[in-house]
């Protein structure tokens, strides 16, 4: 699915402008890094794609549909096709790691046998097999992050939005996660990664969209984390 921002501005009351005049098109199957300093608007951009936030101005189009006009029912179906790794994970505290990954599939009515198979598969890929019966508060930050990634990819979505997916991981694990994201991208999923991780961005060169104070200041194919002039 293509994601298109047409003049999107999001202002929070009273006058905090989180993003301003964003024009951005992310094609189907693309891999994009969103970079920029803290508070530059990366999370806000991702949150408008799932309509968790409604733009104050402008339009967000996902797969040819202006999501502002979607019914809540259609929106639910769109969201099932967009995997989100939240910056703060948002794992459900009352569910085990296994259940956290399983429930998004259950929400959409995947038969129990398939849920089991897929969930176990994801747990295995993310190295969480031995943690599957633990609750989020019982596992480390990095493990929680991997569980959040597992939940986002469990439904094999068309779009994967990952907000700081390597934030709590050591370099080695971060690289593993990147390999995973790239392989998901290779299978046709559009992937958008908001990140501060310079090492990753420079090591796995992809399109880079840089934000400053809510505006796009750079959009570069196979870009680096920072333009040379910034160094």
């Amino acid at each position: 699915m293509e994601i298109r921002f047409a003049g999107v501005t999001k202002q929070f009351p009273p006058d905090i402008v989180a993003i301003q005049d964003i024009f951005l098109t992310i094609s189907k199957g693309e891999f994009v890094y969103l970079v920029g300093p803290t508070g530059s608007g990366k999370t806000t951009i991702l949150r408008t794609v799932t309509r968790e936030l409604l733009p104050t101005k402008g339009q967000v189009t996902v797969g040819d549909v202006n999501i502002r006009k979607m019914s809540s029912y259609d929106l639910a179906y769109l969201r099932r096709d967009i995997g989100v790794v939240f910056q703060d994970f948002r794992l459900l505290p009352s569910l085990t790691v296994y259940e956290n990954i399983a429930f998004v599939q259950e929400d959409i009515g995947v038969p129990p046998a398939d849920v089991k198979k897929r969930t176990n598969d994801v747990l295995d890929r993310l190295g969480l097999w031995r943690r599957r019966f633990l609750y989020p508060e019982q596992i480390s930050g990095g493990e929680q992050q991997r569980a959040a990634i597992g939940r986002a990819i469990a439904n094999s979505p068309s779009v994967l939005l990952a907000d700081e997916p390597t934030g709590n991981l050591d370099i080695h694990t971060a690289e593993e996660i990147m390999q995973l994201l790239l392989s998901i991208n290779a299978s046709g999923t559009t992937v958008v990664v908001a990140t501060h991780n310079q090492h990753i961005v420079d090591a796995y060169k992809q399109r880079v969209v840089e934000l400053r104070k809510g505006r796009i200041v750079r959009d570069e194919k196979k870009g680096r984390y920072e333009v040379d002039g910034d160094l």
Partner: protein
Amino acid sequence: MATFRYILRDTWRLLSRHWGLSLLTLLTSVAVFFLVGVSFLFVLNTRYLVATVEGDLVVQAYVVNSPEALETVARKASTYDSVSSVRIVTSDEALERLRARLGKQAEAVSLLDENPLPPSVEIQVKRAVFASVIVRELISMPEVEDVVYAGAVVERLERISSFVARLSLVILFISMASASLVLFNTIRISAYGRKEEINTMLLVGATRNFVIFPYVFQGVILGTCGALISAVFLWFSYGFAIETLQRSLPFLDLLTDPGVILRLGAVLVSAGVAVGWICSWLAASRFIRLASRSH
């Protein structure tokens, strides 16, 4: 189908997670439905009592002592729709009855050479409210010397019965309102406690109904179980109450038909389902509509 299973499992999670709250709600709804059942039984019994007394209600018209006059009055009485039976009681018959009632002391009556008892027409009325009209008309007949009937008592009984019915309606209303409030609140609290989770579920693509239904079922289960338990309770305690009452007040004619009590139980359980469904649906759907709003 899978979805249904997931919903049921989530319902169970809700009930067990907030088990203290669930238990409290359950107890409240048991108490409320018990109260409703008791007030229903009270109404039914007063109605039944009034009906029984009414069935025994006899208007006694004392008539001048001539067979023709007796016939006239009897014929006139039979013309009313509200009269169920008419019977002529001659002087001799009246004396017989008195003897039977007095037993030994009846000897005194035999000492009189002449039978002092007047003949009468006994009129059985279907409902007490019609009695006063008949009495008025009978008294205006020249053949009739006097009319005796226990109308005042019955009319008072009817008034009490309608008062009891109204009182019970008030009790019914108050108890249903409080049951609804408690259920509504329980569902709201348990939804509120999972605010974040509901948000997350909606963000990853759960439909509103998928999120709402566990809460609705939670409410329905609490309401239904409450009503069911109270109905069972009612069954046994009513049996016990009847037994005790009939031992101490044997003349009191009470409702003992098990069919009536079973039907009452069915009404209570349906009310439980309905109240549970409506309240929890209102609480959950409102909450989830707010939660799913984009900012």
